[in-house]
């Protein structure tokens, strides 16, 4: 079975084959023997890739959204069955408005722009507080503030859309 694993635009084709009772995974032309085990029922796994243990945590949402935490790094990816010719499939990068999401749970202590405001890359947009730290969220690119979705004093979760820039 072939899968396309997409990391926000950049991706790999991953093929899983069964051979004589062992599972192999092929990535970039390299085939490796793999075994997968659950460590607990909370999403912790160990995969042995050519005998090397890879402990990880996976959160699998619908639609192929998978969040994988290796012990030292976390990656968000989209997994779909690959149907095109090998290596051909590419995700179309979204060129629409930039959604500014909250990078963590916290409290909006200041909103520094209004809808319609013109911002440069780096313009401070919002001040978020958590754990006694105040963090300025800055514009990732120039544009016009379109929708403002939060207010001062409001609590937000990780990933909440704060505003959009067009």
């Amino acid at each position, binding site marked *: 079975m072939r899968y396309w694993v997409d990391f926000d635009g950049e991706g790999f084709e991953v093929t899983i084959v069964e051979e004589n009772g062992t599972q192999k995974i092929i990535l970039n032309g390299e085939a490796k023997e793999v075994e997968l085990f659950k460590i607990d029922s909370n*999403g912790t796994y160990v995969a042995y890739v050519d005998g090397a243990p890879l402990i990880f945590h*996976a959160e699998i949402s619908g639609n192929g959204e998978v969040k*994988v935490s290796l*012990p030292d790094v976390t990656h968000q990816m989209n997994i779909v069955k690959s149907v095109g010719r090998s290596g051909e499939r590419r995700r179309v990068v979204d060129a629409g408005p930039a959604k500014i999401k909250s990078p*963590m749970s916290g409290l909006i202590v200041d909103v520094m722009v209004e809808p319609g405001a013109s911002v440069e890359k780096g313009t401070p947009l919002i*001040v978020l507080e958590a*754990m006694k730290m105040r963090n300025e969220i800055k514009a990732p690119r120039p544009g016009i503030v379109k929708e403002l979705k939060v207010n001062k004093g409001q609590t937000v979760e990780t990933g909440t859309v704060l505003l959009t820039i067009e």
Partner: protein
Amino acid sequence: MIQRLLVANRGEIAIRIGRTARDMGIEYIAIYSDADRNALHVLLSDRAYRVGPPESEKSYLNMDRIIQIAKDAGAEAIHPGYGFLSENAEFAERVIEAGLIFVGPPPEAMRLMGDKLQARKLAQKVGVPTVPGSREGISSVEEGIEVARKIGFPVLLKAAMGGGGKGMRVVRSEEEFTSAFKLAQAEALGAFGDSTIYIEKFIENPRHVEMQIIADRYGNVVYLGERECSIQRRHQKIIEESPSPVMTPKKRKEMGEAAVELIRAAGYYNAGTVEFLVDKDLNFYFLEVNARLQVEHPVTEVRLGMDLVKEQLRVAVGEKLGFSQKDIQPRGWAIEARIYAEDPANNFFPSPGLIKFLREPQGPYIRVDSGVYQGYEVPIYYDPMLSKLIAWGETRQEALARLKRALNEYIVFGIKTAIDFHKRIIEDERFRRGEIHTGFLNEFTYTSLERKKEAAIAGTLAYTRKSAAISVDKGECQPESRWKTLGRELALKGGIDEILG
């Protein structure tokens, strides 16, 4: 010695202090906010009391309530840990007025040292060099800009009552000043209840080297060696080591003696740290005194075989130091990495949340002082430090190798940490050569977008396993079912035939 000690703190430091209390046969009394009901510092206590709602102002900073709890619990002494009320002279006074022992310096010395401006003046008086800067707190943006112009940009804004990097901001130009000053004031107010800010010349690329001291009430002051804490992000130390890679015995003696002189002049006793900036020519400048136990105290402990909290308690009850300067014979090298719930790929934003899996490092010459457990939810209200990882070695190289090994076996899932970031730092060539300074991390490019291939393999395997499980419920190799899959009965019978021959 006392019978009961209230620790007016939370997390790893409350636990660390509680451990020494228990080693000394003293009951460890914990306090908790509503956000910390089942925090590890509560679970590991002898008895725990509710101090208030989650916000620090109403809980861990609530002096009246804390003193009342100490009395109700029959505690004779209060240890403030670091942060929160630890450098609050008023709190120390009120503890003493309530007839309790404050495990820390005398309030007068705290007040003196807590006011960074007064501390600077004292240092100047006893001949310890200081960094150029404002003599007083800055009351307005306009005054600040004027002072900054006089000193010359870049300047450093610092909270007069501050510590731990909070309320601290580098300002490189006049344009940045207004916004930085207001943020610094607000942070200082939130963290220390006082918005006073002062300004110092920002020395480019200095090292941060500090001297640990311990003093009793009888004028005996001993320095316990330096710590180099130049690896900082957001002005907060994240890797500390002892000794400093650049320190010479001569400089160490000079710095140690300067620290002792200042401490004596301040009428200070108990544990404390004198912080210095060190420039490229190994000139050192007095920065401030941390009138409390510091986060990084274990790197000093493991080299000396000493328990600083035990020494604090002994001094607090009026004992004399049991050693003098010549008894201090450090062994080898120690290094600490602070593990926070934070996202190094996203400007070290805190990453609170539920810890879904946890396996902390262990083994030879590794000490872990942790405040969390598997199943614990890191709350959003407090400093997000999870643990401190301390490695010891005969040499710096050996200590670094062990720290790396420990980082490699640190597994925590559910929240983000800077464990990978720490690994990159200690593998950096300049770091390995000891060529570090407080701006080191600003020049350090880090992306967590590595190892995508491993992640892709892991993700695909878990995804296909889950899909398969949903469609055919074929059962997976869980611990509970391993027994059966191994064909236990048969295997055992095979085994016994062989054994019984």
